[in-house]
């Protein structure tokens, strides 16, 4: 049903993170449904696709977190980059340490530029991207390449989870119903190579058929540290563990294309769907990993 036909939800905008957490806790304790809303670019679309609510059915209360400035701050402290969960893609693109200035985390800006189109980038957030749990999430792939940590908060306290452990299955995660994602923490290498490639048919408003984010620290001809995140090749964002270990296993010049392909194949389980085919996705997964490895000096 059309968005204009959505049932009226109760909608609140609370002054502080603490208020949001308290509301979540209280409502959860009373078995009442609550949705935190950031950009709304996933949630509203999901409502449109959902069947109509039965009369009298309980609707979730919507708590808007998009204007909580504490959730939007981005700052760099030494090598530690902290990004508020409700910072928008446009904020990333315009930030002096990300898309502008010294571009210490240029990968995030490059990814953001390919996400949806400008309208979506002005509203969408990394927190929403991760919480939705889609394996096609471009932002999550980039966060995974940086081996980011996810900071979760509730009235019960704060905890930090490695991004690779956040998703536990298709649309499932470790987040408890009374928790919100408050920020992402990234420990930036001083010098590193990065890679971003989205394969998605058209230049804007494209859901990734395959996307690869990569971060690598190369010293004396060998990869010392590698981070990879790949979208749309598995039920959750793929960390490509075998590929990571293969790439670090030997000096770059000893890596071979065939072995690299085999590692990528073992890390991916793409499917056929309306957007693409299993074979094409598997092929592109190999192609983009090779391209990244090649850019680092591997003869693949």
């Amino acid at each position, binding site marked *: 049903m059309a968005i204009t036909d959505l049932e009226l939800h109760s909608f609140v905008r609370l002054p502080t993170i603490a208020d949001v957490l308290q509301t979540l806790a209280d409502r959860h304790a009373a078995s009442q449904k609550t949705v935190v809303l950031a950009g709304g670019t996933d949630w509203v679309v999901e409502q449109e696709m959902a069947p109509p609510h039965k009369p009298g059915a309980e609707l979730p209360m919507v708590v808007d977190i998009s204007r909580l400035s504490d959730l939007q701050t981005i700052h760099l402290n030494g090598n530690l980059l902290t990004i508020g969960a409700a910072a928008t893609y446009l904020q990333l693109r315009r930030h002096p340490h990300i898309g502008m200035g010294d571009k210490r985390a240029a990968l995030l800006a490059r990814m953001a530029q390919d996400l949806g189109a400008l309208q979506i980038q002005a509203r969408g957030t990394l927190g929403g991207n991760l919480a939705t749990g889609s394996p096609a999430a471009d932002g999550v792939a980039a966060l995974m390449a940086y081996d980011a940590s996810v900071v979760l908060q509730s009235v019960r306290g704060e905890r930090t989870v490695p991004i690779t452990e956040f998703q536990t299955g298709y649309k499932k995660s470790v987040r408890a119903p009374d928790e919100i994602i408050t920020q992402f923490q990234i420990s930036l290498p001083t010098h590193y190579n990065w890679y971003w490639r989205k394969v998605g048919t*058209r230049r804007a408003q494209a859901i990734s058929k395959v996307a690869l984010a990569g971060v690598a620290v190369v010293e004396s001809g060998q990869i010392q540290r590698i981070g990879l995140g790949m979208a749309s090749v598995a039920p959750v964002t793929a960390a490509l563990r075998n590929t990571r270990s293969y790439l670090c296993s030997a000096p770059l010049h000893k890596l071979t294309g065939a072995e690299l392909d085999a590692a990528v194949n073992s890390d991916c389980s793409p499917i056929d769907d309306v957007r693409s085919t299993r074979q094409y996705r598997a092929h592109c997964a190999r192609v983009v990993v090779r391209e990244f490895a090649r850019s680092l000096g591997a003869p693949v």
Partner: protein
Amino acid sequence: MSQGPSQHLPTVGKSVPRADGTPKVIGTARYVDDLPAMPGELHGATVRSPVPRGILKSIRFDPNFDWSDITIVTAEDVPLNTVALIAEDQPVLAARHINHAYEPIVLLACADKRRVLLAKNAVSLDIEALPTVLDVHESLKNTHTVWGTDNIQKRYLITKGRADTEDSVSAIDAVLAECEVRVSGSYSSHHQEQLYIEPQGVVAWWDESGVHATGSLQCPFYVHKAFLKTFGEQPSRIHITQAVTGGGFGGKEEYPSIIALHAALLSKKSGKPVRMIYDRKEDIEATTKRHPAFCEIETGCDKDGKLRAIKMRVLMDGGAYLTLTPVVLSRGALHASGAYEWEHARIEALALATNTPPNGAFRGFGAPQTIWAIERHIDKVAAVLGMDPLELKRKNILKLGSVTATGQVLHTSVAGVECLEKARAVSEYDRRRKAYSEKQGRIARGIGAAVFMHGAGFTGSGERYLKGKAAVDLLPGGRLRIRTASTDIGQGTETVFRQIVSDAAQVPLSDVDFAVPCTTHVPDSGPTVASRTVMVVGSIVEAAAREVGDRVRKEQQASGGTFAEAADRLLAREGEVTSLLQYSPPSYIQWDDQHYRGDAYPCFAWACFIAEVEVDRETFEVTVTNFWSATDVGRAINPTQCRGQIEGGALQAIGWALFEELVWDKGIIKNPRMTNYIVPTALDAPPFHTVLVEEPFSFGPGGGAKGIGELPMDGGAPAVAAAVEHALGIPMDDLPLTPERLFARSASGAQT
């Protein structure tokens, strides 16, 4: 201030701003869903078949659902259960036989829109499934008869030369056997969804004056005809009005009759106004799309490239019902031999029924499918001959005095060569073609061209039967009002008609009004289709405006005063000053409908499109990097709008070639959403380099305008495919050219 003819500044040829531009941009234009709710209004919804073919055994209404405020309409409530079009094979609501998925079966209405959606879920259909026919090849075998006696909805045969005088098959085979070089191939093209921005929608109600429907539509009189048939009302009691329409591309030619009938049926039964608006999913699933086509071609030519003979068979997928398929097939067949001269030709075209939603009108109307085939084929002939394809096209292109496959002698407004040479020059085709033929890296470049023509106006004697009418009225103060059923659906009719009238009557543009197309108030100008609006209806409007202008000026000469004063005197004296005229086609047109021979169209518009692409040879993503075109429009009444039509049409064709693909699973569409039915975005549009060529057609308005609406859809796909083929060196005979398909056809794809 006097307004003599000497003061009039011509507007034709100037890119005046669009009359409908401001209200659309600032949001005051009212599309059908923006019209204020009428008192007591209900929302309508449709229960559709989930299967492509079967027998409806029963309809069950969940007894636990509260039906008290729901209006229910089934086939039993339809006075005459057929949608009036060419044939009467399509029911308004399926009663027993179900012939395609999404076929409407039950209509529901309720004041609460959410309740009507819940009610939909409370209806269950008991359907006994029958074996299905889902493509033309299956349909041709006729293992299961799903339409008529043999699944064949329509057949045409066009013959020329020896194929015309002897038994056509053995004659053409004999001619081909004698040719020095023979080439054969088959080429397929796929469905395309119009994807107008505004989905289909209608508001219908009954009152003491009869039945009313206002909606997003191209052809108010088609809906009028459908109401006449189904409701059996007096013509004067049926009032069909076009609301501001957000695009049509042919998709709102015949389909609006169905949604309007549905809304009016619900309104009749409930006694309340009913609003029916499709969402995107329902629109993509249930409404018409471009006919898929499969074409086999065999041609013969001399070693030096002189084309001699063509034998071609076109199979088009009509879908479950006839709708406008015979006309689409006709235009496809008439464009099948391309922009080239053949001594001998045999073109057979068949439309076949399948258990898929009926295919229908879509910009180009069958021509893009056959032009796709012939252009790809000529490129193949060039490859066999070792000749440059554009050179081969140049050598064989129809010129003044040439004779087409139907025997039409082209004696006016022929600009194929000029378009070809202009596009070739601005694109630096020869240099690029050579450069990109060198060895390529990961990013391969290619360039390719399509040369084509498109007949403007109705086929053959169509306009003679149709007798399109339009009127210009004189209003107080010397204003003029155009009354026509030709609708502005975003393509700019209103603006261009005002320009034509302004110049013909010599009045300022701001003094010309355009009446809302409502069947009660405007004459039947014929449908807004077939690239006929400007060329045909525009010329009626022009003559009518000239007549009214002359009458006022005569009065001015007789008794003085300004144009406005003379107009007021005339109105005071005569009450009504109107010129209502009927179209008379050029007298030279001779057409034999029986043998499909003669002047297929009063004239053709011509074009050459050249596409340049970059293909990533690993991911098979294609980027169109440049798009050059030279298009003969006769006379560009509004050059900016003309360019808009050309560039928009070309982009729609690029989308058809590279991105768009309906994914089917046993007759069901798997991607009925804008997120997965991929059309190009603004960022995918290449830089367009558009040259307008003006080779006037003496019967066209404004000094010789020809039809331009459909032409740009014809050449984009074959030009892009030629460029991709040039870049990759893999034959591109089947649409679409999605990365997945290119990959599967490539060597790396073949290995996996």
